[in-house]
Each structure stands twice: as C-alpha cells, then as structure tokens.
C-alpha cells in the first residue's frame, strides 16, 4: 500500500514543484488540471504511435508547456485576471485532451515505464520494496524536487524568481526582467504538469479516459500552499496525500462505501488549509507577496 502511495503521490509532486515555481514568481496558475490532462493524452498518444514511452513523456511536457505559455501571455502581458484565466485554460486543456483522446479510450498503452529494482537497496526488509522498487520517474520526481529546492534557494535564478514574486518593483529596479522570469516560471510549471499527466496515463493507471486527472490538478494547488511554497516540503505533502488516496481501497473491505472514503483527501485538504492558516504560522511563511498581482512598471 505504501508503495502505491508513492506512485500516487508522484504526479502530485511533479506538478506541485512546477506550481511552486509559478507562484513563487507571482503568477497563480489554476490551469494545472488542464495541463495535466493534456500531458496525459499526449503522452499516451505519442507512446502509442512511436512505441516509446519516454518520447511520450517528453512530448507531454512540451505540449503542456505550450499551453501554459498561453496562460502566461494572458496573465503577464495582458494582465488578465489570473483566477479566471487559469480556469479558462483548464477548460481548454480538458476539452482539447478530451478531443484528442477520443481515439484512445479503452486502448491499451503503447508502452509503459516499468519499475526498476535497485540492486542491494531493494533487498532491505520492508523499506526496500517500498522505496527502491519504483519506476524511474519516481526517482526523477524526487530529484526534480531537490534540484528545484536548490535552484530556488541557492542560485541567482531562484533569487530573482523569489524577488519577482515578493516585490516585482524591487526586481525591476535591480535590472531583472520581471516578465521574462514570470514567463519562465509559468512555463516550468507547465512542463512539470505535463510530466505529471504523462505519469498518470503511462504508469499510474495506465490508460486514457476522459477525466483521467480526476481533480488532481486542484489538489496540487492546495498542496502548493500546504508545502508553503517549498519544494522539499512538497515531497512530504505529496506522499502524504498519496497515502490518503490509497487508504480508501484498503478500508473498503471493512464495509465503508468507496464514495464516502473518496471524500477523504478533499476534506483533509480543507482541514489542512485551515490548520495551516493560523496567524502565527502565516507570519513566518506566507504566500509570495505579489501573487496574482500583474506587474506594471510605475508610470505617472
């Protein structure tokens, strides 16, 4: 079960790290659900026609990234309302993926990504089978989270991103192109959401149906807050939620109806947000100061 929890949490982790970058730069991306969906369908389709799952993964990232550029352009250059723009993109993403995926419903995947057994480590009792017997994308996602942390907090690029999100005026005056940074961060968010979607259709299920993403994109938005916009915490948050999703299936034999159990993760998200919003915590770790505010260089 824990094994499955990690598998469940991996797409959440990937997309959350992406969303963390977008939000850290000051752009709220509510289109994650749509981008994950696009990623899923593109990955499925490409791997079906080429027989290569990894090509599917890359194509998924590219497609979702392309979609995110639209949101970026609208929110950043055209200063559109970020909440509504993101919602529009979710609709677009879900629609396009539903369209493209029509041909794929019910088909077996062209290729999947198999699990890897890491020698020696996977022999470790209990932990071995859970941690060291996963597919490469799981390890990649953890690596991405760690690299994500490093870049965000220990490099110039990360400093610039964080500054754009807190006080874009200060960044601008220091010679940083706020637009470019924000576009980049949103694009990154899209890429990772695409990866997450690819994971869903190629590893997790694996197949394609309409609605495959099942609201995970929204959970990612919640997880971003839950992780306090820190990629390392996102690892813990994502796996915790993986656990919550897997739990219903374990509890089902006990006679509790699945539908009721399925409400668990959503309720926990709400409770988690409530608990986390306590004043004292918020003072130390709050949302990026300029989140959702389009940047306009001061003129008159």
């Amino acid at each position, binding site marked *: 079960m824990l094994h499955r929890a990690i598998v469940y949490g991996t797409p959440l982790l990937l997309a959350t790290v992406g969303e963390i970058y977008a939000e850290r730069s000051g752009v709220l991306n*509510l289109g994650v659900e*749509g981008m994950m969906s696009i990623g899923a369908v593109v990955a499925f389709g490409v791997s079906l026609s080429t027989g290569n799952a990894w090509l599917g993964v890359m194509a998924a990232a590219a497609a979702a990234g392309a979609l995110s550029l*639209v949101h970026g352009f*609208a929110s950043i*250059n*055209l*200063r*559109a*309302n970020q*909440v*509504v*723009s993101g*919602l*529009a*993109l*979710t*609709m*677009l*993403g*879900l*629609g*396009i*993926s*539903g*369209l493209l995926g*029509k041909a794929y419903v019910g088909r077996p995947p062209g290729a999947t990504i198999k699990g890897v057994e890491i020698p020696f480590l996977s022999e470790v009792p209990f932990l071995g089978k859970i941690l060291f017997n996963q597919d490469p994308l799981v390890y990649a996602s953890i690596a991405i989270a760690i690299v994500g942390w490093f870049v965000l907090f220990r490099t110039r690029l990360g400093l610039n991103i964080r500054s754009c999100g807190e006080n874009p005026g200060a960044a601008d005056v220091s010679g940083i192109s706020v*637009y470019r940074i924000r576009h980049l961060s949103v694009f990154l968010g899209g890429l990772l959401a695409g990866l997450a979607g690819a994971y869903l259709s190629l590893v997790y299920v694996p197949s394609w149906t*309409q609605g495959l993403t099942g*609201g995970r994109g*929204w959970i990612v*938005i*919640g997880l971003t*807050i839950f992780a306090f916009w820190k990629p390392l915490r996102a690892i813990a948050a994502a796996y915790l939620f993986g656990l919550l999703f897997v739990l219903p299936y374990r509890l089902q034999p006990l006679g509790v*109806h699945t*539908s*009721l159990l*399925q*409400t668990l993760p*959503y*309720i926990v*998200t*709400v409770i988690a*947000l*409530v608990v986390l*919003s*306590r004043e004292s915590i*918020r003072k130390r770790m709050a949302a990026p100061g300029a989140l959702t505010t389009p940047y306009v260089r001061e*003129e*008159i």
Partner: protein
Amino acid sequence: MRIGSLAEIRFERRRKSLGRKGILITVSAVLIGILLAGLFFSLIGVSPVFAYKRILIGSFGSMSGWREILRKAIPLMMCGAGLAIAFRGLFWNIGAEGQIIAGAVAATWVALSLEQAPSWVLLPSMFGLGFLFGAAWCIIPALLWAKLKVNEVITTLMLNYVVISLATFLVDGPWKGSSQYGYPYTDTFVDSARIPFIQGTRIPFLTLILAPLFCVGLYLLLTRSRAGYEIKVTGYNPKAARYAGMSFTKTLFLIAVISGGLAGIAGVGEVAGVHGKLSYPEDISSGYGFTAIIVAWLARLNPLGVVVSSIFVSGLLVGGDAIRTGGVPAASIDIFMGLILLMLVSTEIFRSYEIKIGGGGAS
C-alpha cells in the same frame, strides 16, 4: 515589450474612459473566440462553416433548440447571478457545482421523506431546504476565508468533490430506488413533488419565472440597497470597507447565502423539475456550476446582464450537443467555452489601456 531597437509596443493608460463603447470589447472578444474555435475545428478536420451552421440551427434556429436553450438557461441564470454577486465581493466561489448538488440532495430528501404531503407543502419545503443546503455549502468556505484567510478557490472546489461523492453514495446506497435497471437512481418523485412543465416542453415553468426574477432582484440589491453598496465596497477596497465600518464577515456571509442559496435552488429545479429523481451528480448538473462562471464574467458581473449571457451560453451548450450528433466530439464545446472565456479575460486590459507603438528615446 521591445521589438528590435526601433519599435516598442507599450500599453498606455487611456485618457478618456470608454463608457458605452466598452461593450464593443466584450463583443469582439466573443467574436475572436468564435473565430479561433473555427480555426480549431478546421484543424481537426471539420469545416468550420459546417460546424457553425449546425450549431446555429441546432440551437437558436429551431423551436426544439430554443426549448433546450431555455431549459439549460435556467440553472445558468440562477448560478450566474449568484456568482456575479460573489465575484463582485472578490469571493471566488468555484463551488457552485457542488452547491447545486447540495440543493438537489436536499430536495430529494424532502421528496422521498414526505411523499404523502400535498404539493403546497412539498414544493416550498424542497426549495427552502435546497436553498439552505446550498447556502450552507458556501458559507463554510466563506467563513473560513473571512475569519482565517483560507483560500476560497480551493475550499469551494474541494467541497464540490465532497458533496458529489456524498450524493453518489446516497444514490448507490440508502436512496437506491426500487425500480431501476442497472443504472442507479432514486425513485421518481411523486407528482406533488414535481414542478409541472410548460405544455409540450421539458421546461419547469416555476423556475423559468424565478430565474429572471432573481436576476432583477439581485440587480436591485446591488444598486439600491445598503447590502449591495457594502458588497461593492468590500470587493473594490476591503481596507476602505473597514474604515467605513463594514463588517467583512457579515458581508461575506451574505454573499455566501446568496451565491450558494441560488445555486441550491437551481439544483432543486433540476431535480424536482427536469429529472424528477436524483441520479448520479454528473447527470443532474453537467458543469452548470463552472459554466456559470463564464456566464457571470460575460455579463461583467451585472445580474441583469446575466439574463442575456446565460441564454447565449446556453445556446452554445445546446449547439454543442447538436454538433455532437454531427460527428464532432462533445469535448469541443469545452474548448469553445474555454476560448471565449480566455478572450474575455485577455481583452479586459483594453478597457483602461490602449496600444501605442512608440519609437525612439528622449534626445
């Protein structure tokens, strides 16, 4: 933005405000959306002209189309008006879908429990409880937002899933009807719990009248009442609202009651009027709560405008059904809507700014 070293594309604040001409922007946004969708159609191998003809004929061009348009417009209108109020108060209620279901569940409960009661008892109780349940489902996130600053986009969204799962559970379990064939739904409501249709259509007459009335009512609320003034100030400038002594919590509570309650009533209308029973939530409300966001935005958050925009959007939905039978997949309607919403939101900037292509520098 800079293109080359000569030309520069800038946004400059307009000197004069647009006023009435602003509607041009809305219209052109919709037109661009339609054009882009047409482009999209041709990409997937469908002639845009064919598609549009089908859409128009299937919706605004026929009596049966109009019947469907009105039927779908009712819940859109009610939710849209409620969302217009909520968004004006900067309360992003993405949970209208769930609030509809909450109302539907409430109505079903009454209908199934009080089967013996006469119509004049059943219907008002169904509506009343539906309103309460819908409102309650919105009040929780609203209070969390007002008191604890918890992001309402997520909480309203999460509660959607919760209530949908609950409803599914009820339909599969305790409320499973005695007469069904593999596809679960509750028993059909007794006649006294149904809203009669207009002759020859599937439009419940009661809600058809109520919906525009609500819109007018909310418009009056917004423009003529103290509460409306408070909602506007709270949305435009929360700091000034405090300075004016307005209670943020009270205002938000009111917004939640209105927005959630109206969605709840829409749910009652669907279940007591259109379907006559409760089935899986996806059948009761196929995205009305989310589509209502477009309705509200298109109407620029004006409850009176919602009357018109809900009919327009409903037409798009019906048209979408029409092309489905013509071989174009259903998902294209989502794309259509998404594009229009995107265009609407992207063109907002042109209301206050104009494009200037400037060149050169100071000296």
